[in-house]
């Protein structure tokens, strides 16, 4: 089945799965997320092994500000919801609503990033630098990797919006929206683990 079997306006019910290439892309992306899971799993393990080795630097309990982290968490969780709305709009072939929800998702992602950058500045100010201790190195690496994933997602989804404007909603662009939504959920799930393992456990354990 080639990409020009369907023309704009005659989209199938689930346009993101209409072609073999699209189904390959979705499957390949799930496999990629499998690899990403291992990647973050290893980063978590390294953090857990080193989190008490604070050297001369501050401990987790001293620096973490739960209210702000909680706000960031809420923002990111909401952005997952808005990306679901975008995929629902995709299934109903409502291009404008879909783009709208994608933009909301990006804005929420950017706010999350803003809070994270502010948070990092605060910590460095309090002597919690990347090079301070094994704890600080593994903290910034784990949380920073997640932040880089969020930033990548923001750029990626923006470019997909550009393509939607240029080419419309087709069997070529629909899978891209769908896949980017899966990605967005993934980084959201990773954040839930970071919130629990890094911040909550840092406060109590």
């Amino acid at each position, binding site marked *: 089945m*080639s*990409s*020009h079997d369907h023309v704009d306006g005659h989209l199938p019910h689930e346009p993101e799965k209409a072609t*073999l290439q699209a*189904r*390959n*892309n979705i*499957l*390949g992306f799930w*496999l*990629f997320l*499998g*690899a*990403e899971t*291992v*990647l973050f799993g*290893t*980063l978590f*393990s*390294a953090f857990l*092994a*080193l989190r008490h*080795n*604070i*050297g001369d630097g501050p401990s987790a309990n001293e620096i973490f500000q739960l209210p702000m982290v909680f706000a960031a968490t809420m923002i990111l969780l909401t952005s997952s919801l808005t990306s679901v709305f975008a995929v629902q709009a995709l299934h109903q072939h409502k291009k404008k609503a879909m783009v709208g929800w994608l933009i909301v998702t990006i804005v929420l992602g950017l706010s999350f990033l803003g809070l994270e950058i502010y948070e990092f500045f605060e910590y460095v100010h309090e002597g919690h630098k*990347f*090079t*301070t*201790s*094994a*704890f*600080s*190195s*593994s903290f910034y*690496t784990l949380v920073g990797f997640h932040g880089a994933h969020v930033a990548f997602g923001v750029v990626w989804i923006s*470019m*997909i919006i*550009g*393509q939607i404007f*240029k*080419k419309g909603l087709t069997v*070529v662009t629909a899978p891209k929206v769908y896949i980017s939504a899966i990605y967005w959920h993934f980084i959201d799930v990773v954040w839930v683990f970071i919130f629990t393992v890094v911040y909550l456990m840092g406060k109590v354990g």
Partner: protein
Amino acid sequence: MDWLTTVDHKKIGILYMIAGGFFFLIGGLEAIIIRVQLMKPMNDVVAGDTFNELITMHGTTMIFLAAMPLLFALMNAVIPLQIGARDVAFPFLNSLGFWTFFFGGLLLNLSWFAGTVPDAGWTSYVPLAGPTFNSGHGVDYYVIGLQIAGIGTLLGGINFMATIINMRAPGLTFMRLPMFTWSIFITSALIVFAFPVLTVGLVAIMFDRLFQANFFEVANGGSGVLWEHIFWVFGHPEVYILILPAFGIISEVVSTFSRKRLFGYSSMVFATVLIAFLGFMVWAHHMFTTGLGPVANGLFSIATMLIAVPTGVKIFNWLFTLWGGSIRFTTANLFGIGFIPTFVMGGVTGVMLASAPADFQYHDSYFVVAHFHYVIVGGLVFGIFAGLHYWWPKMFGRMLNETIGKITFWTFFIGFHLTFFVQHFLGLLGMPRRVYTYLGGQGYDDMNMISTVGAFLMGVGTIAFLLNVFITWAKPRNATNDPWEDGRSLEWTIPSPPPEYNFQQTPLVRGYDAWWKEKMEGKTAMTPAEPIGSIHMPSPSILPLIMSIGLFIAGFGFMYDHLLVAGGGLVITFGCMVIRSLFDDHGYHIEPEDQEKGVKA
């Protein structure tokens, strides 16, 4: 130019073969120099420092830049053909995977010219590899070169999993897959779940070295044992990433040249899955002497020994396949049959090493060196040679010369056992690994000389193979669709070499050993599953090459602290990603009238 932009899996397979073969020669040359240095006591061919660099680069090159790419060569050349597909799931990523591997390997080997070579062993243990004890750029080459090459491996793993799941011909159910395809499927899963661990390890050590992080800096709370865990959680599955494809090749070769169905097919499949699963559970058997305690040592000891069970199942299935078959001793099959006892010997010493108390004696001695060379050379390299001789006519349309092939086999086989068999005893006598020389009169002298002679004999075998390739090149293409006449799977139903679209019509598979089944019913071709029609092909692209060059430049930038260069390299790579994303590749179509002309790959 055609070769720089190709996204055709058959051509990418050939590229992998050339590049992997090239690195195999470099790694082999390093091995020869190591053996020359150890030929006699108190030898001074190379200095101690150089020796450290040689063993590091030999191990790293052979595993990451020779063995794996040669396996990727066979995967690319064979898998889509065996499952009746026109290409892999992601042809563009396939090309990108090759180029990142190539430039990663190139970066690593440029360290020889930069005069600062990795010298912390292929395991790159900290603190030896950390900035405190290793302040030159050597280990940086290791870290960044492997990181770039690792991208390619991961892409390959994802690609082949998706290909095998989604693109099988109609009727080709999972329990009808040829054994080589099965083994590559499982290997790809291992790659997807093991390589990201290495990625994190390399990132962590890179941060330590370049940005003064403290993952492994003990003075600031870092942990050396953490590196060992990370490295071996990747490193042990890596052993199975290497050996499972060899198992798959041997299964095909032994069955074809015994003219028999593979004995115990379903038990072979389950044994493969079980080995892969257990492969993830045993990493700490590399760390018995680290001091994890008797409980951990005991558990990992038992888990390791368990792997012998499914492996034994495989060995007996090969023997039963041979049993009563009308065996043809082609070069491919000689390597196949030679593989079986050799690998058993490697397995037996593996069980010995798995016993934690005994391991305290064998640890870091030549016994370990002998063991893993029996597994990796006697297993994997024999498997690769078997596969190359077996599929050569399919890849190039020419039969390799059998006489030279047999010379290759016997020199390599005898040379191999000469080299490594005596090393078991050297190890038991107490000769440590990784030392650049030894005193005479300790009972090491004669055996080291034998070992070195054997290494040269293996070199002769390799040269014979190269000679065979060049002689074959000069001959006309004469291979038929099914040159061994006993082919069993789908790749033997199409011309050698295949046209660029592989199958003019997707075949309909009606059972295990699809082509054999049709032949037994007197048919001369597969039943097609679709009418003749226009075939959609992906267009070639230069972007993968440019993206990899971008990473290559960025690697140098980071290493030598030129952030501008590093940024520039990354801009090239990400720029290519943007271009790829904005301009869709619609590919092109080959119409039926052009298909009749038989477009050659």
